[in-house]
């Protein structure tokens, strides 16, 4: 099992969710986050007072998938979240040791 963690532009969330659903994935966790990469921040001006805003709003998606599906899931996210503009985000894949479905006690891939 792998944890696929994707940081994407907020308005791309629906397309990414749809793409992952089409792969047969049955759940995900979404968080509103702030951060920066090469896009850096932007400048806001209020009555002449300028503020550099370093952390931009992004969406973090976390989804745990069977190892066999990882590549397809990553490809689906890339295809759905890409605009070609700076600030599209990043995807991290990390190994998962164990999964438990709390309601039934099922474990690992049968719990996904």
């Amino acid at each position, binding site marked *: 099992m792998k944890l696929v963690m994707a940081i994407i532009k907020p308005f791309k969330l629906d397309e990414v969710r749809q793409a992952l659903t089409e792969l047969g994935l049955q759940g995900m966790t979404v968080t509103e986050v702030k951060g920066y990469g090469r896009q850096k921040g932007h400048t*806001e*001006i*209020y*009555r*002449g*007072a300028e*503020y*550099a*805003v370093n952390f931009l709003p992004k969406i973090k998606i976390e989804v745990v998938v069977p190892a066999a599906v990882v590549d397809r899931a990553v490809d689906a996210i890339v295809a759905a979240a890409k605009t070609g503009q700076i600030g599209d985000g990043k995807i991290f894949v990390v190994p998962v040791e164990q999964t438990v479905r709390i309601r039934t006690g099922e474990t690992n891939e049968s719990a996904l």
Partner: protein
Amino acid sequence: MVKLAKYLFATVAALAVFLIFKLDPALAQEAAGAAPAAPTPPINTGDTAWMLTSTALVLLMTIPGLALFYGGMVRKKNVLATVGQAFGATCIITVLWMIIGYSIAFTTNDSESLQKWIGSFKYFMLKPMTIDAVNPLAGSIPESVYMTFQMTFAIITPALIAGSLADRMKFSSFMVFMGAWLILVYSPIAHWVWGGGWLGQLGALDYAGGTVVHLNAGTAGLVCALVLGPRHGLGKENMAPYNLVYSVIGASLLWVGWFGFNAGSAVTANVNAGMAMAVTQIATAAAALAWMVCEWMIAKKPSILGLVSGAVAGLVAITPASGFVNPTGALIIGIAAGVVCYFAAVHVKKAFGYDDALDAFGVHAVGGALGAMMTGMFASSAINSAGKGWLIDGNAHQMLIQFYDVAGTFVYCAVMTFIILKVIDIIMGLRVSQAVEVEGLDINLHGEVVQ
């Protein structure tokens, strides 16, 4: 809390006792023999209906209008404290206006030499305001309506000052300051211009409060900003507004409420009220566009905060002129207000470095003074026989009178505000500790937060 109550009570009581027994020869005379009763003029129901409406509209300007306008511009940690200042000011001023403020501003002092400076103290606790009382200044409506209408002006004027002292003043000191400023600054100046005092006798034209309300509040704001000092972290920390939608809603409520402010200042439902409403609308829109164009050219983007700030600047500048100018005059005053207030709030403030946090000085004092002077320029006797201006009627002398009005208000207000602040500072302190300021006023002063 006990300490605060003690201060409040002591301030109010001391003022009342001092003013009633030391300054008013009328009171002694009244005890000796009753003055001849003036015949009561008939109440006009149309006028009364409009003034009841206007009173509600002007109260709407402060709560929630001004509260939201300012509340949206501060940081999240100070939102409640900021809207609370407008609400708290509304309450303390209502009570003090009932006790003595109205009497000082809008009643006639029997001594002619004192009448120039201050009204009488006969209306202490509004005792003579019977059910059918009428103030000679507003002959066709019940005095109860006139007193409440003027109360809403007395409320918004000190509340405007909160824009300059935002994010850093103790709530207790703020409340005491509001009360003291009302009695010692607003009420006398309102008397000078509207209550038959020296500026009114000179012929100063201030229809709805360009100097009495806006220059006055903005000047006090500048003094507050200078005495309190800048907010901690100014220029280094991000002080971006919490939610500008609140400010847009607030500015919109100010705009709507302002029809009560300007058209209501006719104190009748007549042709002057109608024209005041029309010129108010025109000047406001023109000023908003002018501010927007300036910002678009200089900062490259037309901000929504700029658009609504321009509208408020236009409302302020047309206030003194609203009963005296024609639509063309209003358009020119509006454009001038948008351009001048933009530079005052955005560039002059930066150049001098004072921290007028939400631009009470840059918008209200500058806009109020500009409007007062431009009233002298554009007043037309074809609109109002009481106002002969320079450009249309060839009465250049009016400019000098308007200047006296501006200068007199500015100097008296600046000096008195400074003294009041220093006295409060000595007794109870003005500013919160740095730790409180950094963590936020809401949680520390009020025990509440906005999530």
